[in-house]
């Protein structure tokens, strides 16, 4: 498979997953606000700041908007072109990547991405404010449909594995960020107490975290009614069977990486395999008590850093491939970690006339 095609499959999948996750955060936050309205009014900017913190883009937001409220945050996370991680930007980038490899994906996959793209182009901001849940459900369903179509129309070859890697690395990263931010907020609200509380209003917030990962029902089946923060964290970080937990995501990414390279549990052939194998082992043998005593925030931050390094190694191993003696002459390397879209020679591509 062409390195460029592999890279675009990876980023197509990654951006699609990112769009879905943003829709999930926003949807759940909206519901949460209604639940908590009796304690803190919906206008409380703290709830909205959290959403910006998840995406680590506070500075960029502050440059564009004067305050944190439903309208500005929704605009920034859903529509803003200035925000490279807004749902609109992610879907556009997923589509650009798909478009650059349109011959490598099934036409059904392309039609689905295209459909979502046109849906977003045709959605007015007011429509989202009128029916936020309906809008976010639309995005989530589009993503589910895309996964399903991919599952049923894409051959189980190397390309499939790159799609899986993109999806699961992104998902693990998003879940880690989501937990981290919520943890941060709840610590803050219990006035610096190191222990997270199990008070009912906090539990509602933890439930919201579960919901945004579509994990509440699955959680209940395992832990029944024991809705305490540690169980919730155990489930979201360490559960091996739930498809949106961090551990599950890492296992799935690892499987895909190993299928590509032929690595196995006791033998790795490149750094991407080594790092993901290490991470998977650590998750496999970790306990929530250890994680908490080490400090959840540090643990998650470390996890996010490791994910970045794995991404870098995937890039170096498969996308930036060339043998040392054959330097591509005068050809600039693609910018890492963007796939299609960043600073390409648009002018030069376009200026060739058509016969």
């Amino acid at each position, binding site marked *: *498979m*062409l*390195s*460029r*095609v*592999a890279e675009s499959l990876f980023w197509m999948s990654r951006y699609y997953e990112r769009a879905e996750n943003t829709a999930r955060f926003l949807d759940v936050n909206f519901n949460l606000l209604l639940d908590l309205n009796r304690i803190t009014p919906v206008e409380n900017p703290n709830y909205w700041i959290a959403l910006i913190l998840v995406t680590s883009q506070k500075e960029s937001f502050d440059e564009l908007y004067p305050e944190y409220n439903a309208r500005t945050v929704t605009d920034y996370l859903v529509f803003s072109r200035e925000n490279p991680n807004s749902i609109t930007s992610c879907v556009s980038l997923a589509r*650009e990547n798909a*478009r*650059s*490899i*349109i*011959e*490598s994906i099934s*036409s059904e996959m*392309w*039609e689905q991405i*295209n*459909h979502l793209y*046109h849906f977003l182009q045709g959605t007015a901001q007011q429509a989202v404010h009128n029916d936020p849940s309906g809008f976010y459900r639309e995005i989530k369903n589009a993503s589910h449909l895309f996964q399903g179509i991919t599952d049923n129309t894409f051959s189980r070859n*190397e390309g499939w594995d790159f799609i899986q890697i993109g999806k699961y690395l992104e998902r693990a990263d998003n879940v880690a960020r989501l937990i981290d931010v919520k943890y941060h907020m709840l610590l803050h609200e219990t006035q610096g107490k190191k222990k997270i509380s199990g008070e009912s209003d906090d539990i509602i917030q933890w439930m919201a975290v579960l919901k945004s990962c579509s994990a509440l029902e699955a959680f209940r089946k395992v832990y029944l009614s024991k809705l305490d923060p540690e169980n919730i964290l155990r489930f979201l970080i360490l559960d091996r069977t739930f498809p949106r937990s961090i551990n599950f995501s890492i296992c799935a990414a690892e499987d895909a990486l190993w299928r*590509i390279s032929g690595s196995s549990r006791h033998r790795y052939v490149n750094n991407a395999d080594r790092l993901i194998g290490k991470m998977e082992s650590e998750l496999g043998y970790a306990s929530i008590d250890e994680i908490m005593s080490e400090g959840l925030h540090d643990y998650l931050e470390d996890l996010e850093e490791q994910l970045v390094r794995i991404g870098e190694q995937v890039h170096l191993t*498969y*996308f930036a*491939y*060339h*043998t040392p*003696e*054959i330097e*591509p*002459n*005068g*050809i*600039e390397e*693609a910018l890492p970690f963007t796939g*299609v879209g960043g600073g*390409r*020679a*648009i002018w*030069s*591509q*376009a*200026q*060739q*006339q*058509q*016969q």
Partner: protein
Amino acid sequence: MKRYFETYDHGPLRFFDEVFSKEGTPRPHYGKLLQRFRQFSQEDINARREIINIDFRNQGITFTVYGVDEGIERIFPFDLIPRILPAKEWEILEKGLLQRITALNEFLFDIYHTQKILKDRVVPAELILGSRHFAREFVGVNPPLGVYIHVTGSDIIRDGEGNYLVLEDNLRTPSGVSYMLQNRQALKRAFPAIFGKYKVRPIENYPQELLRTLQEIAPPGRFDPNVVLLTPGIYNSAYFEHSFLARQMGIELTEGKDLVVNNNKVYKRTTRGLERVDVIYRRVDDSFIDPLVFRPDSRLGVAGLINAYRKGNVALANAIGTGVADDKVIYSFVPKIIRYYLGEDPILQNVPTWLASNPADLKYILENLGSLVVKAANESGGYGMLVGPESTLAEQEKFAEMIVANPRNYIAQPTISLSRHPSFINDSELYGCHIDLRPYVLYGKNVTIVPGGLTRVALKRGSLVVNSSQGGGSKDTWVIDE
């Protein structure tokens, strides 16, 4: 209720109408089609158009317009009424194209080898040697099978009497064939019953024929050759077509940065290392294809590709330097070229052409700017063109200056009489829009011509410019056996 075709205006008689004779009676091969359309209501037509538009948009069947910031992708307008060519007429076209392409290929072989035609002064040497498309580096290089023009798309028009004339030979990287294939699919979907009433020759095998042609030109000794399509990238206006053809042929779509040259061999960069490439169907122009040889600022090409090609380690379709023969000035010599190499009279005629480089012609051109169509010799896509009758005096003066400054670069033709064909404009009204025809010719071991081609239609009232970049659309084109 208003019936379609009840009020169709045949327009000025100097144009040939494809569907109605000068007396206003339908031509026989359109009979069944008209009968059916007369039964349609506006709602029927709208419903069918909607199906097709959604299909096209979802599949991303779009083209890119340069210089427009917003919504740079547009759906390529598709007209619902097909154009019908009876087998008898098609046979003439087929024979004429075969003759013309054969002669043009011999011409290219000659000017890149012994240049006999120049020595015999049939074509002035300075026209060839001074052309910016003449690739000096390729003199003496033998392309596989001696073929230069593997894929061509000549533009054919009809004069007032309905005679087929060649307007342009596109010998470099002609586009549009994907629309031909998509149009057929769309039309079958929208009007299965009408389609079923005719014996329409199929065109769906074009991608297979193209792939076969490409495989045939692989360097000798390369078993199961690795064929790729080279595209300028997703921002190119024909990108949809590049990806469509790659997918239809099952070959890889590559950009310049996917390929590297080492030791005069071409490789693609894959997740498992470098893999040898044998044949490149390139949709990148000569001047962008190798920064070491042509434009050093090009990022679309592959450094070292030209040397690999000269060594015979990789085949290119089309060959380098074919543009020298589809220049609008050389065009006027094609009838002579046909007689010179084949000893035959041309089956398809040219449109009369005046060369600004010829002093007598130049005088005529400058005196008649208001009635002529002036074209820059090296432009395509409807750019760099003056349509005399539609131009202002200021535009004419500007062109006069440009022509005098660089006469070699301009030709003029009478305002061409593109034939007319009923088409929908503004979605509902039937109007006789001007059309042309671009058949696609494949040349490997043999010449293959897919029946029909792309009918382009100027979807503006009275417009003679059919290019998609200038508001043109297209029609499905049927060659029918009676």
